[in-house]
């Protein structure tokens, strides 16, 4: 399917002296970069480092102000993404671009459908060709399955298959693992290895430095629109990479932990069952502790939280707040009891991005900024915005700034601020650091630690085990909607958590000595 590489080290794509400015911002300044045939080349840097801009230039979405792109030895200028794709450069964005109601085969060939002699769709050929590509990637996905029924991970594989069917020689992947579980990531890496062995050059963008060791050959670091360095993977330590990315010494990934879990039970959940995902889950949350929720995707982590919060209906089980039985039939019930839920998908579920920052900050507690008869008080709203912008160090030019125009880290702070303004006693963070950069992650961790220290109970749902181990006091591990283990964080490690998550660990309940 691909031309066999003659020399694995020959340069496939080379950019030199690229410069791109947007009004008020120099996004890329004199950037150079090269990609060889059959290598996986990681691109790392904080948000705003210029990675996305460079990718958009390579894939023909935008044009550079200056600089040259040499592709397979020839200087090229792409005027559109279609041109770049025709030449063999494809990009898979974070948000997948599949059509949910079409089948896998129809999606792979969308826009390029093979036709019969009668100029009608040749569904048969589509299916066999799709099957050929899927087998090449060792995927067990049916070409006639409708895409909307597939899990995210398989949808991503379909996207890769689609790109391959276009005979791409350069594949750009933007945060491909952000929505995948550990086992799905392993599958993805196998596919990436297959591609590499066929001579495809892969540019791999990720915030998860840990995972790079499994696949990356070389690594280039960007900071503030500038190219910093390229090294073979392993030639520099991960710590040095992070320091180079942030441009300052980042001593630790996680802040020092001074919160002291108390013995006071804030929240007690007994034998909760909800929908098809949550079958039997019990746990306790103590005042001042950070409780990690671990488990594979589909284990019911988020669903437990949503049921407790009243966002989804419950079938069975009881919830006690400070010992008293409570009923959370809707989010507004839970909020009245001081429970807050920060959804995993901020933009989709957590924020009204077209509204202002102050309007979002006060959204969960509008009564607090209104006077008699439900009339709003702009002065109270402004005061709340000022208070939380300062205490959470939200970087914004104006209090009524549209949330859409804030960075990911600042958006997360707005969501947190929303719940602090509501005086929540229990905060449930669902994937609190997904898609935000290293520096901002640290700030979110600091915030969580501070809240726990001030007596809030925190539940942190996370797919990233280092985050679970680094930030939680205890961990509960879920497996297929049931509690698999409750572990004290200092006494456990990644392997143990993973084995419980995969359903192979011995059930045990060390719990807390109270």
């Amino acid at each position, binding site marked *: 399917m691909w031309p066999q590489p003659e020399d694995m080290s020959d340069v496939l794509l080379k950019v030199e002296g690229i410069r791109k400015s947007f009004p008020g911002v120099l996004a890329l300044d004199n950037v150079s970069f090269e990609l060889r045939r059959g290598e996986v080349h990681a691109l790392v840097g904080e948000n705003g480092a210029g990675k996305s801009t460079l990718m958009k230039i390579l894939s023909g979405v935008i044009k550079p102000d200056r600089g040259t792109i040499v592709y397979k030895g020839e200087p090229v200028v792409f005027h559109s993404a279609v041109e770049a794709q025709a030449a063999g450069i494809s990009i898979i964005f974070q948000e997948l671009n599949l059509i949910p109601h079409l089948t896998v085969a129809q999606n792979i060939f969308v826009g390029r459908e093979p036709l019969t002699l009668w100029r009608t769709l040749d569904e048969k050929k589509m299916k066999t060709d799709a099957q050929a590509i899927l087998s090449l990637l060792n995927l067990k996905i049916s070409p006639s399955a409708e895409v909307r029924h597939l899990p995210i991970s398989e949808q991503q594989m379909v996207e890769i298959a689609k790109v391959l069917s276009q005979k791409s020689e350069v594949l750009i992947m933007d945060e491909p693992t952000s929505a995948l579980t550990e086992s799905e990531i392993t599958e993805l890496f196998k596919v990436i290895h297959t591609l590499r062995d066929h001579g495809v050059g892969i540019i791999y963008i990720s915030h998860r430095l840990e995972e790079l060791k499994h696949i990356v050959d070389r690594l280039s670091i960007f900071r503030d629109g500038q190219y910093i360095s390229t090294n073979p993977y392993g030639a520099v330590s991960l710590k040095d990479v992070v320091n180079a990315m942030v441009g300052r010494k980042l001593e630790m990934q996680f802040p020092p932990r001074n919160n002291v879990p108390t013995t006071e039970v804030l929240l007690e959940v007994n034998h909760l069952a909800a929908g098809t995902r949550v079958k039997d889950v019990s746990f306790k949350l103590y005042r001042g502790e950070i409780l990690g929720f671990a488990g594979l995707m589909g284990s019911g982590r988020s669903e437990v939280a949503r049921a407790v919060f009243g966002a989804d209906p419950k079938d069975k089980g009881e919830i006690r707040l400070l010992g008293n039985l409570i009923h959370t039939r809707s989010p507004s019930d839970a909020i009245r009891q001081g429970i807050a839920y920060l*959804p995993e998908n901020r933009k989709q579920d957590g924020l009204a991005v077209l*509204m202002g920052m102050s309007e979002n900050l006060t959204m969960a507690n509008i009564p607090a900024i*209104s006077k008699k008869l439900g009339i709003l008080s702009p002065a109270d709203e402004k005061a709340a915005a000022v208070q939380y912008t300062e205490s959470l160090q939200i970087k914004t030019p104006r209090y009524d700034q549209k949330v859409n125009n804030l960075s990911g880290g600042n958006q997360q702070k707005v969501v947190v601020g929303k719940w602090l303004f509501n005086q929540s006693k229990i905060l449930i963070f669902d994937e609190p650091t997904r898609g935000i950069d290293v520096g901002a992650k640290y700030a979110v961790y600091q915030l969580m630690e501070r809240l726990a220290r001030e007596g809030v109970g925190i539940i942190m749902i996370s797919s990233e085990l280092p985050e679970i181990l680094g930030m939680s006091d205890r961990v509960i591990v879920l497996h297929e909607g049931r509690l698999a283990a409750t572990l004290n964080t200092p006494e456990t490690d990644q392997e143990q958590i993973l084995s419980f998550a995969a359903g192979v660990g011995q059930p045990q309940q060390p719990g807390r000595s109270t």
Partner: protein
Amino acid sequence: MSGRRISLDKVFTFGAVVILFAVFSVTATNFFTVRNLLTMALQTSTITMMGIGVTYVIITAGIDLSIGSVIALTGTLAVMAANVGCPTWLAMTVGLVTGIACGLGNGLLVTHLRLPPFIATLGTMMIFRGVVLTITNANSNPAPDEFGNLGNLTLFKVADAEGTTVFPGISYIVLIMIAMALIFHFLLKKTRIGRYIYSIGSNEEAARLSGIKVSQAKLVAYVVSGFLSAVVGVLLASRMVTSQPNGGIGYELNAIAASVIGGTSLMGGIGTVGGAVVGSFIIGILNTGLTMQGASYFAQQIVIGCVVIGAVAIDQLRNRRS
């Protein structure tokens, strides 16, 4: 809502009103006269009120197609009530309560049966129209004279010593429109329920997870639309001093046009009462001005259609650039 963009929108649309005004004042004799301006305000007031109501619904990312039918139903019921001996105030209240009930019905279909707003109000559009045609057998009936006072009398009428009218006065309909615009502007911008309506239109799931009672806020939006349709229905019946079971057909489309010209987004989350007022006046000025220049009703339709498309196209282009 936030930012300079919105205020820029206002400058644009308001500028359009001023320019239209200037153009017609120069090209059409008798356009810029007190009498004509008052007539124009009177004719536009009904579109304005419907436009405000439907703006509430559109901000929640919904739509209300039943407005024209609600106008016919409420006006007719008010006239019938007056004809069976109810005093005028009570007869008109019957109309208004009916409008609120119609809005509540629309809202419940959307929130509790979870019907798409387009389908729910398409259905009630037919049902309400069917009801009013059935109970009247499609006949118009005259109302008592007193019932016509509100729609035909004016305030501040000035006449000289010989009884010649110097200033014809401002119609009660226009005054009611101004009052409605102020009240519903206040409700949308300055109160909790208004904030809820914007929030659910901007991101319904985020609003729900923030504890906002989404169904309640949507119900309010549909009730506002039903109520304002009823106000228009009762006022039109009063002005004609008859019931009009066949009246109001297609009025909802004028209302939606006014709202959209005024910057309301059909995707929800964006829109203002002021925008609906300005949008309706753009339509009103075009109608009057073109009529005075001798353009046919048919040609006016073409112009207004172009304005709707143009207004939204400009908005899209500017969004793409930013």
